[in-house]
């Protein structure tokens, strides 16, 4: 129980982990994940890798939607740019750049390209808001996929049939095993969350929140809407690009249809379910969004007993489950799972003196 959260210096008061609960949780998570990497079975590692990649993307999306208040339905485009960027750079650099340094060049460059495209896609946000912006970003998603699928670019992108990505070689350490990939993804996921947290204890992050809450008031405080809206899009696109790069390495081959609207919607769904504009929102949201298809798969396996006519209902049911989740959360818990955990923590903290 925390009876007083008292600090003796401003530095202590500005920490991210400013109480013992948070410290215990984060350090505990690190230990748990290290144990997980060592002992979990291959299936769990596979699911956890998907969660980690998705988490990086959703944390990025949270910067734009949750903190800056700009709707985007096109973030799968940036994941595509990251994934294809890395793959194309690997293929271009093959032979001239040593394999052991290739990822150190390919990933940053792919992330930078994503950020640049993010700025371009963010341009409409200076004029339009809400639904209109959502449609404008939606267009970006379709344009990127369209370009990738063009025959003209097929020698680089592989067109409709997709392309293979080599396993990353980090200064001699070749990550050709999913378990090794998991370590890399987990490290990046932690780093992503920390970096975004850092943002929100400086003027840059505060400016984003100010724009979300009241844009004219932000302007009066000297916040340039042009600069910070585009910065927000760039950061968010960069993290999605990073997620894309990891995704390409993880799956070892990529197809354009992986990055279509369905993925953008999944990212937004994760954010709505988890809770927007909160650190833990993406974490909870991603766990739910990745678990739902897995649970459906297991349940269907048990129910259908191998009957193909039942099994083919699985894909549409999955889409319906996402739709149902979004509607359920928007109606009954619009602030997401974080709001539920907030209430539980508050109740625990006050127990036994008060309830709720």
């Amino acid at each position, binding site marked *: 129980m925390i009876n007083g959260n008292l600090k003796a210096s401003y530095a202590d008061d500005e920490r991210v982990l400013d109480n013992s609960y948070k410290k215990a949780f984060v350090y505990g998570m690190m230990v748990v994940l290290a144990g997980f990497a060592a002992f979990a079975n291959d299936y769990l590692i596979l699911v956890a890798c998907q969660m980690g990649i998705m988490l990086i993307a959703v944390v990025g999306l949270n910067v734009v939607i949750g903190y800056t208040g700009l709707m985007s339905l096109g973030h799968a485009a940036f994941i595509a740019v990251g994934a294809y960027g890395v793959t194309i750079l690997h293929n271009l650099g093959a032979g001239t750049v040593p394999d052991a340094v290739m990822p150190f060049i390919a990933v940053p460059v792919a992330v930078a390209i994503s950020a640049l495209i993010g700025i371009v896609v963010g341009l409409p946000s200076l004029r339009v808001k809400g639904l209109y912006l959502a449609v404008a970003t939606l267009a970006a998603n379709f344009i990127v996929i369209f370009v990738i699928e063009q025959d003209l670019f097929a020698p680089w992108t592989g067109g409709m049939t997709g392309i293979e990505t080599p396993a990353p070689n980090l200064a001699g350490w070749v990550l050709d095993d999913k378990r090794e990939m998991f370590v890399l993804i987990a490290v990046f996921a932690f780093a992503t969350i920390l970096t975004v947290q850092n943002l929100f204890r400086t*003027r840059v992050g505060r*400016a984003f929140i100010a724009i979300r809450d009241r844009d004219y008031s932000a302007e*009066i405080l*000297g916040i340039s809407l042009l600069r910070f809206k585009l910065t927000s899009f760039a*950061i968010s696109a960069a993290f999605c690009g990073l997620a894309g790069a990891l995704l390409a390495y993880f799956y070892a081959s990529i197809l354009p249809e992986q990055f279509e609207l369905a993925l953008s919607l999944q990212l937004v769904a994760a954010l709505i379910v988890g809770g927007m504009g909160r650190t833990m929102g993406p974490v909870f949201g991603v766990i739910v969004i990745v678990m739902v298809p897995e649970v459906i798969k297991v349940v269907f396996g048990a129910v259908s007993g191998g009957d193909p006519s039942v099994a083919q209902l699985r894909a549409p049911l999955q889409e319906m489950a996402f739709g149902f989740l979004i509607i359920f959360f928007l109606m009954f818990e619009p602030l997401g799972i974080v709001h539920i955990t907030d209430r539980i923590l508050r109740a625990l903290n006050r127990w036994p003196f008060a309830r709720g």
Partner: protein
Amino acid sequence: MLKIEDLHLSFGGIKALQGISFEAQAGEITGVIGPNGAGKTSLFNAISGFYQPDRGRVWFDGRDITGMAPDRRAALGIARTFQNIALFRGMTVLDNIKLGGHTRLKTGLWGALRYFGPAQREELEFRRDIEERVIDFLEIDHIRKVPITALPYGLQKRVELGRALAMRPQVLLLDEPVAGMNREETADMARFILDVQERFGTTILLVEHDMHMVMDICAHIVVLNFGQQIAEGSPQEVSQNPAVIEAYLGAAA
């Protein structure tokens, strides 16, 4: 300090401001009064850059700022509060006040993402400054971690003043700082405004309907009516001006 020169502003057929000219002297409190719809808030919006005047100029410290964007004007040192409180409601008092320092801080994107190093140093330095200069000064240290939504109206108004002070403004525009407050809260706010003027030497421009307060704390008063400037002078001169009594104060006052 702040000079308004022959300002005209219209929205379609409505002439919101018609030839307003006055000067707010450095370090003084200048009041702007007038009945509802007289153009007081329009005048503020023209000064802070939300409205572009049709004609006329706004001078700040000898510089023509008429065509400048709102955020650039803020960076020069013009801060304001709003009639209907424009705080960021989801954030805590501390974060709201920190936002006032936006233009004074230098941390860029890279520094912010890394945090440790220059960004942290700057943040902690800034934190100390606003704690000592703003939060202590306005006596709001007990609520610094409270979200805005949980605060009563009077305190919200005070936090908004705090956010403006965090900008270290040279000119402070206050749009009805005591509207809807009881007598005690009004007295508190009047005291804070006088303290700001005395301690920081800030030039203050004040729109207010509370005549007792305006007459007590303003050195100079400008009276507007239907977009026209009908009088200007010391509180005494203005309160005895027949045109002002006719338009606004009423005969009994």
